[in-house]
């Protein structure tokens, strides 16, 4: 039996008091396509950094070709044929494709002068090798994401790697681009190069990977040939969430208006003829592949795609959602996908993060009322059960779950009619997850909100929504489960949804 190309044995790595990796073992065979799956914060990035020599390990062993490596450094990693393609591709947007490809080699060769002809020849060779069409003279900024990715791949291949690590390679691609990427990856594999996909969105990866390792909270929770896993199982392992046996039940009371009625909503290039009606107390899941338009649907409803066509009615009234303020005034709330960059003001206090969307309600004559602010912040902390002795702490010090509660709590202060949650429990530990789910159910049931829940986490959708919609290429294409037809059997619904998504991929 051949030795693994790369092997980690019981690797431990701390950051401060936090164990980022807690005894991780992983082996990658020559020429295989391996998928490392895990949610944000599971230790994936640390693992990449350790393999590429950016971070050192506290305990454990790294073996390359069966030989122990004492200290991995970036230089050593490259010498061993390990290349990493980061999520941001690490390209120079202002420079040409040719330069992006060839500059690194020039630097490493210790040259002082640039020979453009030599650089161009190198770049051309790299592009030819990948067998793709790339304009060497185009600046990288002018390329679409998929083009930039090809440049990054071509550049990595120039170093004759044995292992290519790709960090979240499919996140910003459309499904067509993903298919093209996989062709390229299969071609790479055919030359004996191993590929390690690192991703929290492994649905696409299933089609191509041969083996999978699943990481959760710094531990390997499962691993093996891909055939032993189905998507639902992987999600459960990644998130740790168990599917609820009782789905969220909702009865339509025909007397009332729907809270939200969307007719023929379109945004050029991203959304096409969306028709959607959601009643009070409903929790509607939206699922779909990358680039399916699910986030854009949320953004359009939140006033961030003001050029939409079609009509939106809230409680029977026509509303125009031309800005975030219009959306908020019409009692729509949005909990964004990326909590850290879109949701929170990290160095600010919990209080301010809770109150920031309600300044108008907390002021009289243009002056904020400290009493009202104090009460509102305290009630939100209580309501959302945010675990903190005081609202004065900077929100950055909270755990992921509590941070998410802050973002949701912010909107509850405005008593929304419609609550849109995009990835409500990404990067939230298992315990907090259930709590957030309970809160969302309570808000829908007791406050009569219409909730739209966008998620990759299928058990989350099946367990908490009374129906789940599937989006594909900007359209709503399917409705998978619906408790209006009586409570469904959750596992079967989950499987149906998973199968449907696989068909679309």
């Amino acid at each position, binding site marked *: 039996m051949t030795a693994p190309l790369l092997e980690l044995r019981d690797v431990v790595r701390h950051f401060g008091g936090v164990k980022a990796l807690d005894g991780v073992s992983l082996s990658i065979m020559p020429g295989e396509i391996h998928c490392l799956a895990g949610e944000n914060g599971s230790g994936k990035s640390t693992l990449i950094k350790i393999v590429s020599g950016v971070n050192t390990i506290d305990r454990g062993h790294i073996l390359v070709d069966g030989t122990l490596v004492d200290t991995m450094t970036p230089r050593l990693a490259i010498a061993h044929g390990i290349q990493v393609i980061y999520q941001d591709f690490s390209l*120079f947007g*202002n420079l040409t494709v040719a330069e992006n490809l060839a500059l690194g080699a020039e630097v490493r060769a210790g040259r002082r002068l640039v020979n453009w002809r030599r650089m161009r020849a190198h770049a051309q060779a790299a592009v030819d090798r990948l067998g793709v069409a790339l304009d060497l003279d185009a600046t990288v900024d002018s390329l679409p994401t998929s083009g930039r990715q090809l440049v990054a791949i071509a550049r990595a291949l120039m170093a004759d790697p044995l292992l290519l690590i790709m960090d979240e390679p499919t996140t910003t691609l459309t499904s067509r681009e993903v298919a093209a990427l996989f062709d390229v990856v299969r071609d790479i594999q055919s030359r004996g190069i191993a590929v390690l996909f690192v991703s929290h969105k492994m649905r696409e990866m299933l089609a191509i990977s041969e083996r999978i390792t699943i990481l959760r909270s710094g531990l390997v929770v499962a691993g093996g040939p891909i055939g032993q896993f189905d998507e639902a199982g992987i999600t459960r392992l990644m998130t740790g969430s168990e599917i609820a046996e009782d789905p969220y039940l909702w009865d339509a009371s025909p007397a009332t208006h729907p809270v939200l009625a969307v007719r023929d909503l379109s945004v050029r290039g991203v959304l096409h003829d969306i028709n959607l009606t959601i009643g009070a107390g409903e929790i509607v899941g939206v699922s779909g592949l990358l680039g399916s338009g699910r986030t854009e649907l949320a953004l359009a409803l939140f006033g961030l795609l003001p050029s939409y066509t079609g009509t939106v009615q809230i409680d029977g009234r026509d509303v125009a959602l031309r800005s975030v303020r219009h959306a908020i005034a019409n009692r729509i709330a949005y909990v964004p996908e990326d909590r850290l960059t879109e949701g929170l003001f990290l160095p600010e206090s919990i209080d301010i993060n809770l109150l920031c969307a309600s300044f108008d309600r907390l002021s009289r004559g243009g002056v904020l009322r400290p009493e009202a602010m104090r009460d509102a912040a305290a009630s939100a902390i209580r309501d959302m059960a945010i675990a903190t002795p005081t609202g004065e702490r900077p929100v950055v010090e909270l755990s992921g779950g509590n941070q998410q509660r802050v973002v949701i709590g912010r909107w509850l202060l405005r008593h929304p009619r419609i609550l849109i949650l995009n990835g409500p429990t990404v990067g939230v530990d298992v315990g907090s997850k259930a709590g957030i789910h309970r809160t969302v159910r309570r808000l829908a049931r007791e406050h009569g909100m219409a909730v739209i829940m966008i998620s990759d986490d299928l058990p989350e959708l099946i367990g908490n929504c009374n129906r789940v919609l599937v989006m594909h290429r900007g359209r709503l294409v399917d409705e998978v489960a619906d408790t209006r037809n009586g409570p469904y059997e959750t596992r079967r619904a989950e499987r149906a949804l998973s199968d449907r998504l696989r068909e679309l991929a």
Partner: protein
Amino acid sequence: MSNTLTPVLSGRADSPRLAWVLKRPELGVGGLAVVAMVVIGSINPAFWDAANLFSLLRANVITGILALGVMIVMLSGGIDVSFPAFAIAAMYLTIKGMIALGYDGVVLPFAVATMIGLLLGLINGLFVYGLRMIPLIVTLGTGTAVRGLLLGAVGSSQINIDRMPPALIGFGRLEFLRSVGGGNGLSTMVVLYAALAVMVHLMLRHTLIGRSIFALGGSEEAARRAGFNVRTTIFFIYGMAGALAGCTGLLHGSMIWVANPRDMVGIELDVIAAVVLGGTSIFGGRGSVMGTMLGVFTLVLLTNSLIIMHIDTTWQRIVTGSIVILAAAATSWRDRRIAA
């Protein structure tokens, strides 16, 4: 309200021809210069006299060399407002030294002035790289400190032509093509400026340190990962800008035959205006020597031709200010189009 998300989400492909023009700001500035010359020439045909054109080119020299330095800094994503103080400090110290030592010459003093500028520039580099502070605030501080120290500790009185080293004055007066200009030739300093410009262009285009400046302006993280030594690059950038400023300071003194330690106050605005007009992006990564030279030429053309156009020179600042704003708005529009 401003909607920061829509431009990102509604990516729209420009026609290739438009994209080509957008990426060549030289065309825009060059066109502007041509139009301005035609208009000014038709208002007052004396504009086309060789003597006037020669003096116009001569007026490009100081702003132009300083602009090369500022462009290098801006290519990396920084900004520099300390160079006038550095230029004057280098000039005044060198000339004071020459007088004190009774030395007269050209090459050594220029080498000394350049070295003084280089050292001062490295201080900027130290603060920008070592302490990670915003370049504007660092250079505001170093500029003021250097100027204050010069005036307070070295001297605040002007050195007039009678005490200026004769070799320097002789150097500053060198000219050629005297027969064409009807007595006034073209200053040789124009050739020096052109030579420096070619040198900077070759450095930016054909050396790895030059490409590292563009790389740094494109993405610092990517530059690091590609193996560039970012520290070397930042020290090189600010050192080079300082060296160019030091050399220009002494050249300035030689050309006006006076060493005034209070000179060049506010010239940073003209220089930055010229660089921005030449299409260099303040966010780094985009710009060229050709564009910068055209920017300098156009700015000098517009401000120096006010008299020829019978406009009071007090309008000069309004012209400069408008150019900065219009050029910056155009550049920001272009950058958004390219990014879209």
